[in-house]
């Protein structure tokens, strides 16, 4: 079937693209100044112990040899090396932290969709109404707000003044016992485990960060929905449906269905961006997500976490783009060919 051949072709591309990303990021990240050995043993360590540690970590080899070892470990054992900050294998760290980031982004984008799509459709349909005016302002404003600043403002109102929300310190209260990690997403794990206390606490901590991401991502989603719906409602076929006397609700439904591909595209672009882009919100809410882990890696010249994060992020982005293509396949017969 054409779909299978299409996916096959895309899978073929994923391999080389991933290799390209790892290649570029490896040689780029290696340029980050700062000597890990000194970082680990502190400034007082003698030169001998430092060189001995460097040899142990293979830093004395040429970059190409280091790259060869890195790739061999990754492909054969799925080992992304060890982080000197957490002293644990990077793969383990990421499997712990990435779900936190993904849970946050996924819920944030869902909220963004709930805000953006209905508002966009409404604004496109009631052209002159106040809704159209409001969504114009909101679309532009949401794109202009710095997400870390909005997080601070929300914390100030809902925590410092109103106290409706738990303090912005991580994903769970100290005294709540975390559910056994199955998916890594606290809401799901606590549901699976039936641990209602953890569920309540996790949900409480999620509110502000998800609202931050939702309000921010709602902007571009709204703008894309509104502009595409506008174009679709002005299109020849919508006009012809009007001429055939089809009820307004049907015309809108058809226009929306034709606008879905572009909404799906913007959501996939946002999702790819937020994997690395939500790090500021993570820092404000000390979320302990993967982004934060990578940023710490860069700031402290801890190479392996950065490379590991880039690899994970790249794999996720490529998977997302594949899903988007499949959705295109389902919606648009022209793509099916």
């Amino acid at each position, binding site marked *: 079937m054409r779909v299978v051949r299409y996916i096959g072709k895309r899978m073929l591309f994923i391999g080389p693209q991933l290799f390209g990303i790892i290649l570029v990021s490896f040689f780029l990240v290696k340029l980050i100044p700062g000597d890990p050995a000194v970082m680990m043993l502190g400034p007082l360590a003698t030169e001998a112990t430092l060189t001995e540690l460097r040899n142990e970590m293979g830093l004395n080899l040429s970059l190409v040899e280091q790259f060869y070892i890195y790739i061999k470990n990754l492909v054969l054992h799925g080992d992304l090396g060890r982080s000197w900050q957490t002293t644990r294998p990077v793969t383990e760290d990421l499997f712990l932290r990435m779900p936190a980031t993904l849970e946050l982004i996924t819920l944030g984008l869902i909220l963004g969709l709930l805000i953006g799509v209905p508002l966009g459709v409404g604004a496109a349909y009631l052209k002159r109404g106040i809704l159209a005016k409001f969504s114009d302002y909101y679309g532009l404003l949401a794109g202009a707000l710095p997400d870390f600043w909005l997080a601070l403002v929300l914390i100030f109102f809902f925590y410092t003044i109103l106290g409706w929300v738990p303090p912005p310190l991580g994903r769970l209260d100290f005294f709540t016992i975390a559910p056994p990690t199955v998916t890594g997403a606290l809401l799901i794990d606590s549901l699976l485990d039936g641990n209602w206390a953890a569920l309540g606490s996790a949900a409480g901590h999620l509110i502000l960060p998800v609202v931050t991401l939702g309000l921010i991502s709602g902007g571009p989603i709204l703008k894309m929905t509104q502009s595409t719906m506008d174009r679709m409602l002005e299109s020849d076929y919508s*006009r012809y449906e009007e*001429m055939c006397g089809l009820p307004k609700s*049907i015309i809108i439904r058809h226009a929306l*269905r034709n606008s879905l591909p572009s909404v799906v595209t913007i959501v996939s672009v946002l999702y790819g961006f937020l994997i690395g882009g939500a790090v500021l919100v993570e820092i404000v809410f000390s979320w302990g997500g993967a982004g934060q882990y990578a940023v710490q890696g860069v700031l402290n010249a801890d190479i392996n976490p950065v490379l590991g994060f880039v690899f994970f992020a790249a794999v996720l982005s490529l998977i997302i783009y594949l899903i988007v293509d499949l959705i295109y396949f389902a919606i648009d*017969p022209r793509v099916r060919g």
Partner: protein
Amino acid sequence: MAENSAAGTILNIEGLNVSYPVYETDPVRALRGIDLKVREGEIIGLVGESGSGKTTLARSIMQLISRPGRVDSGRIEYDGRDLATLGEEELRALRGNDIAMVIPNPRTELNPLVTVGMQIANVARYHLSLPRKEAKKMAMAMLEAVQIPDPTRRFKAYPHELSGGMAQRVVMAIALICSPRFIISDDATSGLDVTVQTQVLELLQDLVQQQGASMLFITRDIGITAHYCHQVAIIYAGEIVELASTQNFFDNPQHPYSVMLLSAFSHNPKLRGLWTKVVDAALEGAAESGCYFAARCVRASDKCRAEHPDMREMTDAHSVRCHHPVER
């Protein structure tokens, strides 16, 4: 106009003026006092060049003038009711049901994501409030009526998979499924190849006459009206300048613009020289007073430039809007 014989008048347009506001200058007057009567079962050809207002007229009948155009004055009476007084719901019930439109480039005007069969069925479903299965059966019957090759397979096809001719037949199926009493064909065959065009025109004429419907056939190609219309109306700069039965019109065209149009089709340089005045395009139709065609007319006199001519009935079923019509 000859008093209408047995058949009643289904559409009566009186003094219709439509204009589009334009920045910095006066609004562009697309229609400047259209008077047109269409009797039941009659096919009337409306011939005009681009910018003459023929598409605006089609959309005015459907009360769907594209923004920012607006109706300045005049009445459109359909089946005895003034369309301007009807509410949005009543108009919606008419469009596609009683008044249907056949459009020129169907492949861009059909919904790309819905199968062709369903698009035909949808019109029947909503106007005749039929259950889904019933509407699909009717749509299939319609596909066979428009002689689409292999209708069962085409039913599930998408618009981009159809050839020009097939897409045109689908649009005709959509227009005729609710057996409308009045059909507007807005240059419906302009996108087609010559051989396919003849097949589609034959089919359109048969189906319209089978249902006893009447049709306003809008086109740039005067040749078509000679073979497929009962009446011919020539429209220039937003007003009808000549109206006659087809035989009368082609035997004795009287308005200088009609003759100029026919001479253009004859590709005879000598003939065209007689009836065409070389003029700077900028002045075309710009005259507000007097006859709008005066600037390009070889027979224009001072009277033409001063006084705007009215439609005058010359002989039975033949009227002209000109101070010096061509006599033979």
